[in-house]
């Protein structure tokens, strides 16, 4: 027989944040997509100069870092929910949770360092 798992208590805050970040990402992501692709100087290509003109400003930098953190939270918590449905044994769940947390943190630090340090090589 399949081992039945009792539903865990709590998770309320994460449930709420998943919906909240999803809702915010709907607008920020579509805005980002159309801004990057359709508002540059050249119509068929994204150029370094367009990005540079935008990302030297600290306001765009904060928006991009916020966007990055929201997207990483929403995506990795979604992955955790999917693996929560499929994996039951405790050590597997702990391992997957650890991998998701580390990968999320690494990407968050990596991405925000790229944005913060922007014009220098």
């Amino acid at each position, binding site marked *: 027989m399949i081992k039945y798992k009792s539903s865990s208590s709590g998770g309320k805050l994460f449930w709420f944040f998943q*919906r909240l970040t999803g809702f915010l990402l709907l607008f920020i992501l579509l805005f980002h997509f159309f801004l990057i692709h359709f508002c540059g100087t050249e119509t068929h290509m994204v150029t370094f100069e367009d990005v540079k003109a935008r990302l030297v400003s600290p306001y765009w930098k904060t928006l991009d870092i916020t966007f990055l953190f929201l997207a990483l939270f929403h995506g990795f918590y979604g992955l955790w929910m999917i693996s929560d449905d499929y994996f039951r044994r405790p050590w597997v769940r702990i391992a997957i949770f650890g991998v998701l947390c580390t990968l999320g943190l690494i990407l968050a630090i990596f991405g925000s360092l790229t944005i913060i340090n922007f014009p220098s090589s």
Partner: protein
Amino acid sequence: MKKYIKFWRLRMLDYLRYRWRLGMAAHVFHRITGVALVLYLIIHLWITHYISTGPVPGQTFNHLMALFSGILSPEVCMCNCPICRINRFITPMVGPIFRYLEVILLGIILFHSLNGLRIILIDTGWGVKHHKVIFWILLVFGMCGFLFGAWQFLKPI
């Protein structure tokens, strides 16, 4: 004694035996697109970090963007870095493949975000009775956005 049914042996056969309804198909596809978007995000972050690397500022990034735009400009034909060599190799063979992939990405983004909106409407309780109608309305919006975006993307070709 506890026995676990093997994961794959159960799932593969039973997919066909489910009674497929609209809400279930939407849920499954929402999960698939979600995973695909996370993978895309990882690849995107890796590509975008090239904006601040390389000896000449911005050169690697511009060459990568030329590879993704699928159009061979004169400086790409002259340059000898690995990215431009890949560009000269791939683009005459399969055309602007990355453009088509970006159009598909737009479709995936629109589906996941609009279905997510539908899930939020259901979660607030208001959308539970009408979730199918909401799905079709959002599908119409999504198709409009998708056709507009695809047209803008594929226009330069």
